[in-house]
């Protein structure tokens, strides 16, 4: 069980949305974790790389700022075995590359633009995720 946290989740969601709007306002870019990471590990040019590196540096600083403000580290509970985590990560990497985006790029930025591609991708991965969780937890009993 995890605690139902509607207010924290709404507040966090609003911050995610604000970051997406500000990235578009300042740099004219989509706040998609997949695109930002892909362009960071496999850059096309130096100017294209530097803003992604700066966004990523800001992202990974978040737990430290969170610690400085709250005195605790973010809650990360991992009810998943290491092999499943590695296999899942690898499949996510393949999927987001072929699918051109993930929860942030398609699910937030693309859906906010009412992109048919993003709405299709988001519905597809939400259904696939729920089906996978159902199979692992209730069919395989994992």
């Amino acid at each position, binding site marked *: 069980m995890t605690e139902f946290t509607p207010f924290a989740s709404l507040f966090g969601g609003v911050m995610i949305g604000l970051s997406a*709007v*500000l990235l578009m306002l300042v740099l004219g870019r989509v706040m998609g974790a997949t695109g930002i990471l*892909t362009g960071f590990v496999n850059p096309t040019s130096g100017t294209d790389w530097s803003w992604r590196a700066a966004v990523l540096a800001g992202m990974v600083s978040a737990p430290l700022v969170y610690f400085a403000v709250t005195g605790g580290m973010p809650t*990360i509970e991992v009810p998943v075995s290491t092999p499943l985590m590695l296999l*899942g990560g690898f499949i996510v990497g393949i999927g987001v590359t072929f699918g051109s985006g993930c929860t942030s790029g398609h699910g937030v930025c693309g859906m906010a633009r009412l992109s048919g591609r993003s709405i299709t991708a988001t519905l597809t991965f939400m259904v*696939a995720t729920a089906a996978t969780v159902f199979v692992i937890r209730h069919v395989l009993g994992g």
Partner: protein
Amino acid sequence: MKHLIPAFLIGLLFGLGIVISGMANPAKVLNFFDFAGTWDPSLIFVMGGALAVTFIGYRVVLARSRPLVEGQFHVPTNRTIDARLIGGAALFGVGWGMAGFCPGGALPVIGTARTEVLLFVAALIAGIFTAQALMRLAQGKPSVSQTLRQ
């Protein structure tokens, strides 16, 4: 250089949003999708809050002629809904349901140096490079991956 400080702060805001919302907690993410078991509906509020702000904010921002420090907006123009989009999204969902982390959920918590997070991100990057290599093989062009970024 003038774009790097705002980019850092925007990344920090995103990361804090991810941490506060619960998206960086695989137990919470997996419970959100576990309708037949320990369902935790919290993440509806993450998506709702993020989408509402972005939906309104994009309309204001994209009405401008250009962003503040760049010459033009870089908004995806591809409208093709094909097997690669749907197959890729479905694969992403399978992996997300296995690991409980998505890329946006995991990247900010690299900063915690938790082993599980580092393993997920390493596997994620390996998957990205593998998919790019497969696309190059399929299309015979070295730069194809660069046209696919969302």
